[in-house]
C-alpha cells in the first residue's frame, strides 16, 4: 500500500553502492538521513543524551568500516539499527564492568541503566530549559487548528504514512503534506528562540 519505504530503500541502496565504490560523501548523506533515528535509538538504551551521541557516532563509524560486507540482504536501516543496538549494548556492558569490576551480562547492564534515579543527571538549569521546551511544544500544539493538530499527531504518535493519514482524514495527500509542514513550522517558530543559536547540544 505504502510505496515510500521502498523509495527510501532505493535511495539508501544507491548511496550504499556509492560508498562501496569509494564515495565518502555519500556516507555523509546516509549519516544526515539517519542521525536522529540512531541517536534516539541509542538514547533509549543509554539514557544519557551526551553519551548517546558519542555511541551513535561510534555506531556510524563501525557501519562505515563494515559497509563492504553489506550485501543488501536486509534493508540498510535495519542493518544500521542492528549495529547501533549492538554498539549501545557493548557500551553499557563495558561501562558497567569499568564501574563495578564484576562480570555481568547485557540484560543486567540494561537493568542498571533503567534505574530512574540515574536518569535525572542534567544540570538543574538544563532541566528547566528542557521542561520549558516541552511546555512550549504542548501549548503550540493545543493552539493549532484541529486539522493540523490531527495530521501531526497521526504522523508523530501513530507513525502513519501520509497516504494513510489522507485516507483517515479524507483529504488529498498534498493537503496532508501541507498540514504536517505547517504544524511543524508553527512549533519551530516558537521553539527556535529557546534553542541557543540554533546549536542544541
Amino acid at each position: 500500500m505504502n510505496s515510500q519505504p521502498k523509495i527510501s530503500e532505493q535511495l539508501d541502496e544507491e548511496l550504499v553502492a556509492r560508498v562501496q565504490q569509494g564515495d565518502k560523501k555519500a556516507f555523509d548523506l546516509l549519516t544526515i538521513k539517519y542521525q536522529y533515528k540512531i541517536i534516539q535509538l541509542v538514547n533509549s538504551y543509554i539514557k544519557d543524551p551526551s553519551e548517546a551521541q558519542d555511541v551513535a557516532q561510534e555506531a556510524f563509524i563501525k557501519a562505515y568500516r563494515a559497509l563492504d560486507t553489506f550485501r543488501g540482504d536486509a534493508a540498510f536501516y535495519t542493518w544500521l539499527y542492528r549495529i547501533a543496538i549492538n554498539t549501545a549494548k557493548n557500551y553499557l556492558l563495558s561501562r558497567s564492568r569499568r564501574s563495578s569490576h564484576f562480570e555481568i551480562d547485557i540484560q543486567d547492564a540494561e537493568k542498571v541503566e533503567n534505574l530512574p534515579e540515574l536518569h535525572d543527571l542534567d544540570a538543574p538549569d538544563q532541566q528547566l530549559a528542557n521542561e520549558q521546551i516541552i511546555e512550549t511544544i504542548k501549548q503550540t500544539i493545543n493552539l493549532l487548528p484541529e486539522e493540523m493538530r490531527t495530521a501531526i499527531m497521526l504522523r508523530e504518535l501513530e507513525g502513519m504514512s501520509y497516504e494513510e493519514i489522507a485516507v483517515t482524514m479524507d483529504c488529498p495527500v498534498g493537503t496532508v503534506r501541507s498540514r504536517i509542514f505547517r504544524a511543524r513550522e508553527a512549533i519551530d517558530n516558537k521553539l527556535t528562540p529557546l534553542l541557543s543559536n540554533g546549536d542544541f547540544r
Partner: protein
Amino acid sequence: MNEELKQPISELFDNELEHTTALNLLTKIQDNAELKQVFTRYAIISHALKNNEVLPIANDFSEKIAAQIDKEVFYLNPPRQTSKRYGTLLALAASIAAIAVIIPLKLSQQITTPTTIARQSDSQNVIQTTPILASSKKNQRENGSPLNARIIDYLQAHNNTIYGSDQVDYKPLAAVTAYTGAK
C-alpha cells in the same frame, strides 16, 4: 532564502520524498548549516512529541563522523561475490588435488617402462642411465618405495654431471639425495 526548502525537509524527515528529490535535498542539507538546523529542530520536535522529553542533538554530529571517516581507508572494492569466489577456489583446489595424485602415478608407471624414459631423454643420457635404471628397478623391488623410484627416475631424466663441478670429490647433490633415499 531557504523557506521553500522547509516543506521538502519536513517530508524528507517523514521519508515521504521521492527518490531523486530526496537525494538532491540531502546534498543541499549537507552543504548548508541553516538547512541542517531546520532538520535538527524537526527531529527535536518529533522526539519531544513522542517521548515528552528533549533529546539534544549537536549540529556538527555528521561533520564529526565525516572527519573521522576521512581518516579511514578508502573503499574501492565492490561487494564481493562470495559464492562465485568459493566455487573458483573449490575448482582450483580440486585441480591441484588431481594433479598431485595423477603425476606421481604417471611417474611410477614411467619407471617401470624403460622405453618411455628413453623417449624423454636424449640418446646420450639413455646410454648413461640404462645401468642405473636396471639397479633402480632392483632397488624398487627390494624396498618397494615409490618415493625412491621417483628420485631415481629424476636422476635418470637429468644428466647428473651437470650438477657437479670439476672437483674430484664433489658429489652431485641429486646423487646424494638418491643415496639417502635408497637408505
